[in-house]
């Protein structure tokens, strides 16, 4: 019974210390709360109202109507009207606008010959037919902005002649499962669980051992009969509860504020989250046995945190990364959890469906705990 009661003693000690550390305790609640609200509203991959400049060399009624039609797509918003292409380039360079819409003098002729205007097909021998009606100059450095404007490339112009847009038959039919309205929050909120858990779990535990050292408690602790594994387990249990609490806050609030569905895989979700918490905590513990000070522990946390977030598929699709980056991403528990939680919450997947991620996470946890316990020496030399 000694190991169990010792683990309990360490657990209650950690809990007491945590309870009295108001700042940390506040962060436990505030981090998920604020980040959920902030990112839930802020992160949106459907780009709208991109500020653009217009250079209208045509200055006709047609050009003004064309500008209005383009604005009506809500993809862009005209914020500046400029006289020359040079001015437009300067506006893009100085980041006042992200793109410029250039309407040529011969706009009317071009429109008349454009198939997009729906005035019938001109003779195929007429070379002029291949010319677009106007030009976009785009700040292509942000691929997402560029993509949004590129989507305007073949917009129909039949409205110019007060005709209904062509009812064309698509080549493919696309059925959108799981997020038919294409709301970004549906994808972001479950992902946030992974990000926030990675952040808080690794941060708390990475300082767990080194804090004892820094505050001078270590010399006494290693003089007691406590075993490294007892110490490790006792230290992580409080954070398991904190992690679960944070998950409940994020998913519950995500459901209330952003109508993120829950699915009915609650048990799978619980087990999956527990595994991820365990894996993150054991990673934090390993770092804690390496770090010499709490500052170093924090630095190591950031070192692990950034790739965890950026490579995990939270913001950028995993499939878009080169193979090497995918292998690196596979190392981080966050990548596997991102797949798991989106599976449970959005796709109604079960643990069995995601067994590879489950196995990997278990392995990571066990290995992490072993390494941490082995690295923790009850010696000073």
């Amino acid at each position: 019974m000694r190991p169990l009661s010792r683990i309990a003693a360490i657990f209650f000690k950690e809990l007491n210390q945590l309870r009295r550390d108001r700042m940390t305790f506040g962060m436990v609640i505030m981090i998920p709360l604020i980040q959920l609200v902030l990112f839930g509203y802020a992160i949106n991959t459907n780009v709208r109202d991109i500020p653009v400049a217009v250079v209208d060399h045509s200055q006709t009624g047609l050009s003004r109507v064309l500008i209005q039609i383009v604005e009506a797509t809500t993809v862009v918003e005209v914020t500046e009207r400029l006289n020359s292409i040079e001015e437009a380039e300067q506006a893009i360079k100085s980041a006042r606008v992200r793109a410029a819409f250039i309407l040529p003098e011969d706009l009317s002729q071009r429109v008349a010959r454009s198939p997009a205007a729906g005035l019938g097909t001109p003779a195929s021998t007429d070379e002029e037919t291949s010319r677009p009606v106007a030009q976009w100059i785009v700040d292509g450095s942000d691929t997402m902005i560029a993509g949004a404007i590129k989507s305007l490339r073949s917009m129909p112009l039949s409205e110019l002649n007060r005709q209904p847009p062509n009812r064309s038959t698509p080549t493919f039919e696309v059925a959108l499962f799981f997020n038919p309205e294409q709301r970004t929050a549906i994808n972001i909120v479950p992902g946030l669980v992974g990000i926030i858990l990675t952040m808080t779990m690794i941060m708390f535990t990475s300082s767990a051992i080194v804090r004892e050292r820094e505050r001078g408690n270590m010399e006494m602790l290693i003089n007691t009969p406590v075993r490294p594994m007892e110490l490790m387990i006792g230290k992580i249990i409080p954070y398991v509860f904190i992690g679960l609490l944070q998950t409940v806050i994020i998913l519950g609030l995500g459901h209330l504020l952003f109508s993120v569905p829950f699915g009915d895989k609650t048990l799978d979700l619980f087990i999956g989250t527990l595994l991820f918490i365990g894996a993150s905590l054991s990673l934090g513990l390993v770092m804690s046995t390496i770090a010499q000070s709490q500052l170093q522990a924090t630095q190591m946390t950031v070192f692990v945190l950034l790739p965890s977030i950026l490579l995990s598929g939270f913001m950028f699709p995993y499939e878009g990364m080169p193979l090497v980056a995918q292998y690196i991403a596979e190392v981080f528990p966050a990548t596997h959890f991102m797949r798991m939680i989106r599976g449970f919450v959005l796709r109604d997947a079960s643990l069995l469906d995601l067994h590879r991620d489950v196995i990997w996470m278990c392995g990571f946890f066990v290995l992490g705990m072993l390494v941490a316990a082995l690295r923790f020496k009850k010696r000073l030399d």
Partner: protein
Amino acid sequence: MVADTDIVVRAEGLVKKFKDFRAVDGLDLTIERGMIYGFLGPNGCGKTTAMRMLTGLLTPTEGSVEVLGLSVPKDAEALKYKIGYMTQAFSLYGDLTVLENLRFMATIYGLTGARRKQRINEVMDRYELSDLKNRFAGRMSGGQRQRLALATAVLHEPQLLFLDEPTSAVDPESRRHFWEQLFDLIEGGTSIVVTTHFMDEAERCHKIAILEAGQKRADGAPKDLMAEMGANVVEIEGPNLRDIRRHLLGADGIVAAAQLGARLRVLVETGIADPEAFLKARPETDGATLIERVRPNLEDVFVTATGEGRQ
């Protein structure tokens, strides 16, 4: 020769190297049961390192250690139930209360239930902590912290207690009181090893070892050490004591000279039969109003055994 069962610590040829620095350099120790054994020496002399090797916190580079019949560091974990350790700096949790600290440490040492409660109440009574039990350890005075540290160190009733400079952060009153408590523990059958750089504390020990540069310069009961010091002590009163000291230092037959208030304390080699006459005969002491032989103290022993006095 003492019977083996009465030996709590036996160390032979103990060496600890940190890179090229020999912190402990060939230390032999035999510590008997039921006594307070002191390591006396200046900071950096290796006393803490030596103590850490005895408790298994440091692995000796060379030599063997046996504590309470267990080989260290091989059986260090088993030994930890039998020994108590009080670190130099306060190492309990400042953000836990006295009672929480005691409960934590009691459970770590395997005490549970009624036994745990009983031991905690016993040590709180004995070390006057009952009124402070809900006080945060970090908000207590040096003396109170020291009592708490001692209380936690003896919770599991260790046979052997290691105290690393236990009184460096407390006032003289608390220090006196603390030593009385140590003698109570000895009466209860505990043996104690203590490091100190205070002469008056060393003088209270049953036996001491004087350490310098990682080596043992002398050991034995303070009284015996004083008797066998190898120098006689003469005190000089009068004007220009600083001048006299400067002239005497380095002179033949003089081991050391140090001023104590209005007196100059001179250690004279035992080879000189009449140290008072020897000093009176020297021209520097012409103006002296008093030259008398006095009883040696432990500081004299320390001076003769270490540093300049040894050469």
